[in-house]
């Protein structure tokens, strides 16, 4: 270490310039987070996503608090009847259980990934993606019902406050995009696992990183379910 100090003058003359210099200066040969960089970066991405979703939910709170017009009762709006009496919020409840189930299969996929069981890992990831796709399908059904049958628009709403439409389409739409992106992400990684792309290194960290994203999508839904649908 002492030699580093005495030679620092000579070392400064050979420091790289430009972009490489910027990277080296910032990293300065120190590692703050004792996890693979991919995992740390996924966490930071999820942190920024947390801020985006909180902004949406906070603006939803603000417009719901400030409107004079009555807010539609989500329990009735999202009720479905299967031949008999309408069951309150049933479609949303099913969607919630589907996402929770997919989170469970994802957690198992991560586990089998570290055991280097390629077939089981890929299969569980495809199952997770399948649940995700069915979630998006149900959301498409829900949107269709609201737009075509109920006449809800982002700017108006025959059942009450027009802000109901704008916040609903914004929040669930952005979440649905996340789920759709997650389905593609899962399918790509699952295919690579199946092909054996990670066999050479034996490093199945990528499955856990994909899992972080997927669990986050489920996590956001927990908050949307509580604040938009149940409140």
């Amino acid at each position, binding site marked *: 270490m002492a030699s580093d100090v005495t030679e620092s003058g000579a070392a400064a003359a050979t420091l790289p310039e430009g972009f490489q210099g910027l990277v080296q200066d910032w990293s300065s040969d120190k590692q703050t987070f004792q*996890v693979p960089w991919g995992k740390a970066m996924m966490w930071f991405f999820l942190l920024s996503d947390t801020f985006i979703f*909180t902004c949406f939910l906070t603006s939803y709170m603000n417009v719901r608090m*400030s409107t004079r017009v009555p807010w539609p009762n989500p*329990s009735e709006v999202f009720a479905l009847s299967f031949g008999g009496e309408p069951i309150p919020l049933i479609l949303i409840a099913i969607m919630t259980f589907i996402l*929770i189930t997919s*989170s469970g299969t994802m957690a198992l996929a991560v586990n089998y990934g570290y*055991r280097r069981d390629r077939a089981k890992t890929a299969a569980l990831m495809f199952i997770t993606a399948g649940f995700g796709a069915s979630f998006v399908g149900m959301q498409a059904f829900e949107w269709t019902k609201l737009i075509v049958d109920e006449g809800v628009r982002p700017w108006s709403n*025959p*059942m009450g406050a027009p802000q109901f439409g704008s916040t609903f389409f914004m929040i669930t739409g952005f979440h649905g995009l996340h789920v759709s992106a997650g389905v593609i992400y899962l399918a790509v990684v699952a295919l690579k696992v199946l092909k054996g792309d990670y066999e050479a290194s034996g490093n199945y960290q990528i499955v856990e990183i994909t899992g972080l994203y997927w669990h986050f999508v489920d996590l956001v839904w927990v908050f949307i379910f509580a604040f938009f649908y149940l409140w």
Partner: protein
Amino acid sequence: MATEGHQEHPLSVYLWIWVLLFVLSMFSYMVDYIGFEGYLRWSLILIFMFAKAGLIIAIFMHMAWERIALIYAILGPPVLLLFLIGLMAVEGDYTLLTRLDFFGETDFVAEH
């Protein structure tokens, strides 16, 4: 194990948390199904929501086994959002009072 960022835990941990998440989701749904109102409804919704969120972050996302440097870096910043939520709640309240003052009670009639 956690220092290498390699998270391997017994399957039973995940299965138990999975079951718990199902039960908590069921409870959340029952809050609406039974039709609790007012503060009881809101506090139950929040309790089940935070329990579910905590389990997902701690177990499924392995936060419970990460080093404290990462935990603080990720869970610290969102605390700031509480200020945003608080300020926007005050603002929303003020907007409502102003609207009632200028426009009076609503004359909205639902179409169906």
